[in-house]
Structure formats: structure tokens, C-alpha cells
């Protein structure tokens, strides 16, 4: 028995060594010709029973994969179908698995699956979540996992719905920051003609464009914020409760770009210029507010530009400009 025990250990170790690719029994026997195939099979059975390894069938071959030691204990008490369901849910990772897919994968009857899930939930091994992508589906995943961004929709979603207010306030804040909020940049000046000591810093306050409307910045002006800086500001001011990544902020900035409020361009790279010390600038994109364009259109000043029935309006039809009440109102001012 002690030999069998050690065989179990050996097999488990080999499985762990093989990692994600798994191990076949022929691989194992090739590596350890001294082992008896029969005893190896017994050892494998034991391991499977204890839930230390997993079996997969790939192209007619059985592949064995080792499970992490810490995962092992949990499924210990499970038997048969429950374990099967548990394993399938575990293999779906942080994406979660839909009950229908669960049924297809395990080939179990729906009532059986329901029963198993109930047990698993009672034991606090799995949890049910809802996906943003498919709001009607009930997904299951292991208790200890946090759902992936795919499922939750990222920081913008609360209760599977896009939090419009949150997005809007944040976008406005960012716009204000880019437009108005003075940004303190530290300038490390190494230029000798300035007679600054090497590490002298100087504070500069700048906006997207000069206060005086008739002025412009020169094109070497570089005090425009990047996404990382915007993120820093948002986090420092505690505008958002949720931790936002630079990518999240970039999404908001893109929205501002599409709104025509902000422009995105590659900053002029200049060694002497504004390099904040603790900044993770991996992109050179910086953002600049666009001067307010007056959005007015001559067309909308007359009734036709906003007319709800313009499509039916013809020269002599039932809706026509001669008897148009909108015109009457407009001309009466």
C-alpha cells in the first residue's frame, strides 16, 4: 500500500509538472518504466476519487491534469453528480457558465443539475451572477472568484445597467479638468541658460487655451494632460468611488472626443518638458479642449428644419407650405 501511496504522489507530482497541458498515462509510463501499468491505473483512480486530478478526453486519449492543493479540499465532500457539476463550473473560470451550457456539458438531467446547484450553493461553493451581455441568463461560478469585466461590464455598470449618471458626471468633470482646471506641472530644467539649479522646479498653471480669446499658444506648448494624468486627478479628488484604470478613463475621453469637446493628439516629445515623476505614461496621447463652437444651424431657425411632418409636405398636398400653421406662427413672431 505504501508503494501505491508513493505512486499516487509520483503521479500527482508529474501531473503538476505537466501544468496546463496535462499528462497522459503513456507519457507517465514512458517517464517511469519501472511502474506497473495496473498499479498506476489504481493510483489514478484513487486520485480521481479524492479529486486531486481531472480527466479530459482529447482525440480519444485521456489527459490528466492536476488541481491545486487548495482547491482540493473543498470538493472533497462532493460525490458523483455534484462533483461533476462543480468541476464544470470551476472550469468556466471567472466567465461563469449558463445553466443550459452546464446541462449540455455534463449530460445530466435538468432536475439533477438543479438539485446539485442547490447543494453547491448551500455549501457556499458556487454563486449565481447575472451577465451584462445576456441579462436574462443565470450564470454560475465559484464563490471565491470575482466576475470578469465581460460579465459585469466594468466599472460603468451597476446592477447590470449602464450607470448613465455616473458616466455623465465623470465625463463632465474630466472635461472641466481638461478645459479649466489649472494643472500643475513640474518642470525640471536642465538648461544652463536658465541658471536654475539642476533640480529646481517651477510651477506653471495652464489651461487648454489662453484666457484671452484672441491669443493662441505656440505649437511647442505642451501642458496638455494625458489619460494617465486625468486618472490621477480623478482618483486624487475622489470623484469616483470605484477604482478606474487608464483604459476606463480613455473610454470616457473618447466619448468627449466624439462629442467634439476635446481633441486628441500626440504630444510633442521634448525631454526638458513636464515629466511628472510618479506617472505611468505609456501613451503619448494628450487631450486638449476645443474652443466652444456655437452650434446653430440656419435651417432649424425656420419651421421646416424641425417640422415633424416635413416628409408629407408637398406643394399642393394636404400638408403644404401655403396653409402651414407652423409658418403662420413663425411669421407672426
Amino acid at each position: 500500500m505504501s508503494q501505491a501511496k508513493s505512486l499516487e504522489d509520483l503521479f500527482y507530482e508529474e501531473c503538476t509538472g505537466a501544468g496546463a497541458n496535462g499528462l497522459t498515462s503513456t507519457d507517465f509510463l514512458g517517464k517511469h518504466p519501472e511502474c506497473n501499468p495496473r498499479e498506476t491505473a489504481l493510483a489514478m483512480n484513487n486520485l480521481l476519487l479524492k479529486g486531486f486530478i481531472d480527466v479530459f478526453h482529447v482525440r480519444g486519449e485521456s489527459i490528466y491534469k492536476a488541481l491545486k492543493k487548495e482547491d482540493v479540499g473543498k470538493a472533497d465532500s462532493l460525490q458523483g453528480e455534484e462533483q461533476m457539476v462543480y468541476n464544470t463550473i470551476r472550469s468556466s473560470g471567472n466567465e461563469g457558465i449558463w445553466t443550459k451550457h452546464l446541462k449540455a456539458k455534463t449530460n445530466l438531467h435538468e432536475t439533477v443539475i438543479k438539485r446539485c446547484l442547490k447543494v453547491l450553493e448551500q455549501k457556499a461553493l458556487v454563486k449565481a451572477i447575472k451577465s451584462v451581455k445576456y441579462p436574462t441568463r443565470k450564470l454560475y461560478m465559484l464563490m471565491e472568484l470575482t466576475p470578469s469585466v465581460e460579465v459585469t461590464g466594468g466599472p460603468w455598470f451597476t446592477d447590470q445597467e449602464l450607470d448613465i449618471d455616473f458616466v455623465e458626471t465623470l465625463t463632465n468633470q474630466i472635461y472641466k479638468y481638461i478645459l479649466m482646471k489649472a494643472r500643475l506641472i513640474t518642470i525640471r530644467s536642465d538648461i544652463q541658460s536658465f541658471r536654475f539649479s539642476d533640480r529646481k522646479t517651477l510651477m506653471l498653471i495652464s489651461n487648454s487655451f489662453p484666457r484671452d480669446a484672441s491669443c493662441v499658444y505656440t505649437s511647442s506648448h505642451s501642458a496638455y494632460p494625458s489619460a494617465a494624468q486625468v486618472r490621477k486627478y480623478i482618483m486624487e479628488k475622489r470623484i469616483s468611488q470605484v477604482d478606474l484604470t487608464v483604459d476606463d478613463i480613455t473610454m470616457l475621453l473618447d466619448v468627449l472626443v466624439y462629442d467634439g469637446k476635446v481633441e486628441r493628439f500626440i504630444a510633442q516629445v521634448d525631454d526638458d518638458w513636464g515629466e511628472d515623476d510618479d506617472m505611468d505614461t505609456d501613451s503619448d496621447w494628450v487631450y486638449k479642449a476645443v474652443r466652444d463652437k456655437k452650434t446653430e444651424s440656419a435651417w432649424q431657425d425656420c419651421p421646416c428644419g424641425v417640422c415633424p411632418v416635413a416628409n408629407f409636405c408637398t406643394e399642393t398636398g394636404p400638408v403644404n407650405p401655403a396653409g402651414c400653421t407652423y409658418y403662420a406662427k413663425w411669421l407672426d413672431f
Partner: protein
Amino acid sequence: MPKAKGPRTAYSKKNPGHGRSSTYDANSKDRSTHEQVSNVLIRKGRMPVGMIAYLTKLKPRQVRDCLFVMIQHNVAVYAEQQEKSRIVAYYEIHRPELLNRVLIPKVLRYSQEWFERDGALVAQSILSHGKLTIMDCLADINSTIIPGTTGRSKEQRTQSLKKAFTRMVKEKCLIAVRPSDSLTKTDKDMAEEKRETDKLTMPPTAAEMASIRKTMDALKNQNHRNTIVGLKRSLNETDLDGMSEEKRRRLDDLVIVEEVETDVYFKINFERFIIRWRNMQIAGLYEGRLNPTAGKIMSTILTLAEERMINCKEDLSTPVNIMLLFQNLPKDINLVDTMEFDTLELGPNNTKPKINECLDKYLQILEDDLMQIMKKDSGRAGQYVINLKMASKIMKKNLIQEVVSTRFGSPYVRIVNMLLDKGKLEEKQISKFSMMPVKDVREKLTTLCTFGVLNLQEVPKTNDRTPSRTFYLWEVIMPRAVDALIDRLYHTMGNLRQRRFVERAKRAVLLNKCERTDVKADDSLLNSAEKKELETLNGALEMLEVQELRIAEMVVTLRDF
């Protein structure tokens, strides 16, 4: 060439929109003959006199009179064709010219601005006669001015008018009319093509045809670039003659006189006006984005490049030299103080750079601007070219954005912009990138699609084209969006014009009374109610007319730029 002088009023009643001709005459129940003829021509296409007479129920003589006037006013063209033993003349409406007539008020305003009072008088006189020679034009203006009112002698006035006329010809705001201009363009092209293909022994292949067309186009452009027709230059040897009073220019010691040929007819060159308006609008773009100074620099560059522009469809302007630009900048321009420097740039003494350095910096700003309209001419230093195609694209885009934003709101603009930037996208992607819930996005997409800005492209995943297994991709196709919007604008213009005639027709009795000579002489014959009514009418008409012009400006941006 017909030389009749036609009444201008006949034309201002025409509706220049998508074949919809206004049938409203304010003063009388019977529609004017000109209107009937043009109506038939617009709606039914080209046809000979007999057909027009049949459709309008007018006498052939009347029809001929109408066509005569219309050709004089450049709104009708004809083509002659051999049909068996006789030659038949077909008539049709010259649409571009007709559509440009809405812009007449603007043309008058800017001739006043660019060529002062005399220019406006010349423009007005030429517009009311269609085409005129310089002498006829001067005579016409002199006959309308009451002597002694302007404080100038007749001689002085004639001189200054001549000067204005010559300048307008030189700057191509007036263009010489040749007899061939009254022929239809397609017929001319076809005739030329035929001449070329006749040279070949075999019927031409498609490639040959294309090359023939290309050379013909190049030739036409070449002709455009060449010296201005109707303007002759001579050394001023005839200094003592009467001719010497023309506009002259000093070139070293020689005096070169440019004078307008007296036997050439001129018409208003709408295209040149449109080019100038376009240039003004480009400068305006920079003024809005950067500052007025940048706008002025841009406008100077465009003015320098303008001479060689032929129409609004060119891709690039001719290069402009930086030195030339520097010399031609307006006097009141302030390059130094309108630039905000970073502290490091100024140097230790805090001195601002010199003017020409500032100009360099300004040009750098213009070049770096994200619109990417101005760029350095590759190969030659100190030369800048303007990407006119890009500029027109931006102006069209801005206009569509403005319309969408005022009509629907800014979330819609977001979607349009995103699709312009990213190309084709699915509903879900749009929702993700625009950070709007899918159900909102769906509604917005359909609204924009019905409006004509968006297009839907379906890409089936399988051969059976099941809707559930199909990608539905949305995109903005600019030319289509532009066309859709132009259509709507034409519709509005038609409506405005129709309403204008309705407003006048409603008060026909009153207007008739006003036209009476005794009432004209003494307006106390109108009672207070009538006066009030007249005031309301004028107010309404003004609104409608102004609105029509504003819409026409939008159409010009979308159609001609």
C-alpha cells in the same frame, strides 16, 4: 447671340429647387409666360419650341420670346441637331446657373464689399440684363443715376465705373460670354468627343474613350488658366488717346494698360464668388478654432492662392510663398501680442520674438492644427499649400454636425462622429464606445437613419441570410448624407418661396393699390390698416427671403464646396 434685354422679375419668381417651380404670381391670376415655359422645361426636360408651345398652350412666337430672354439671362441653353433635312433646336434649362440665382443678394453685397459702390452698381446692372458689354453696362448705370446726386461729374463717374468693371473682370468676378456658352454642355462635349473618335479608324475602346475624355478635361482646365478672355493688355503707347484713361500699372518704366474689350459680353461669374466665400469660410474655421489673427493669416494665404483657382472641386491650392505672405498681411494684424509663450520659450530676458519669427510660429501652429488643412509644399522650402479638399470635407462635416446637434441633440452627434471616425460598427459596439445603453442607441440609430445621415449594411454570417445570424453594421457615408441633407434643404427652400408668393397673393389687392401711380406719389391715400398690413407683409417677406438665402448658403457649402 441674342441680345435682348429681359425683365429681371420674370426670373426671381422661379423656384430653383429640385425641379419644383413655383407657380405663384403675386400680381395677377394668369401666370407669366416665362414661368410657364421654364416650368415645362424644368419638369419635362429638353424639347423643341413646338413641344413647349403645345405643353404650355402658348403661341410659338411667345415661346420664342421667352426662350430668347432666358438665353439672354443664361438660364436656358440650346442644342441644334440635324434631323433628316432640317435642323431642330432643342432647349433646356441651365440648372447650375438657375440654382445660383438664389445667391444674387449675396453677390450684390459682396460686390459692394470687394469693389465698392461702383462694383455693386455694375453687378446689379449685369444681373438685371443677364449679359452686357462694358459700354452698355455703363450706359445703363448712367441712365439710372439722377445727375447731381452723387456729387461727381458724369466723366468721373464713368471713369470709376470703368475701373471697377475692369477690376471685376481681372479678378474673374465677371466672365466673358462666348456664343458657345449658350449651347448645352453635354452636346458640346459630345461633339468634341465625336471629332476625336472620328480620327480613329476603329470604334474606340473604353480605355481610349477615357483617355480622350481626360485630355479634353485637361485642355479645358488649361483654357481656364490662360489669360482672361475679354481683357487685352498693351504697352501704353497710345497715351494721348482716349483709351489711356484705363486702369494702368507701372512696371519699371513701361506702363501697361489693361482694358476691357468693348465688343465682349460679360456675365457674373458665380463660381468665382463661391470660391471666395469658400475661402472666407476656411479662414473662419481657423478664427473659430485658434484666434482672429490665425484667421487673417489664412485668409491672406487663400487670397494669394485664389487667382489660380478654377473651381471649388480642386484638391490643393497653388503654393504660397512665405515672403509673399509676409508682405501681403493686413496692416492691422498683431502677430506678437496675440501669442502666449511658455516661460521657457521666452528665454532669460523675457523678450518676445520678432514679427517674422512670430509669423513662423503662427504658420507652425496652422500646420500642426488637427484639421490638417495647411501643409508645407514638399520639395520647396518656404512654400505652403492648402488642402482644399480636406477643408471642404471638414466644412461639410461641421455643417452636418450642426444640423444633427440642433435637431436631435449632442448624443446623436457623438454617434455620427464615432462612425465617421471608426467606419462600420455594430449596435453593440456603438453602445459600448459611446457609453450609452443599447436601447437608447438603437432608437437614435433608427432616427438618424430615417433622417438620411446613417446607412445600414447587413452582412449575413451564413448563406441562408437569417436575421439572427446577420451583422448589422451602421456607417456614415458622407456623400450620401450630404445628398440627403441637400434634398431636405431644397425642399425647405421651395417651401419658403411658395410661402412668399402665398403671402403676397393674400394681399394682392393691397399690393395692386400700392402700385397705382397716385398712391405711389402720395402714401396718405393708404389708410392706417392698410399701412399696418403692408408693414406685416414686408416683415414676413423679409424673414422668408433672408431665411431662403441662409438655406441657400448651406446648400452652397454642401453642394459646391
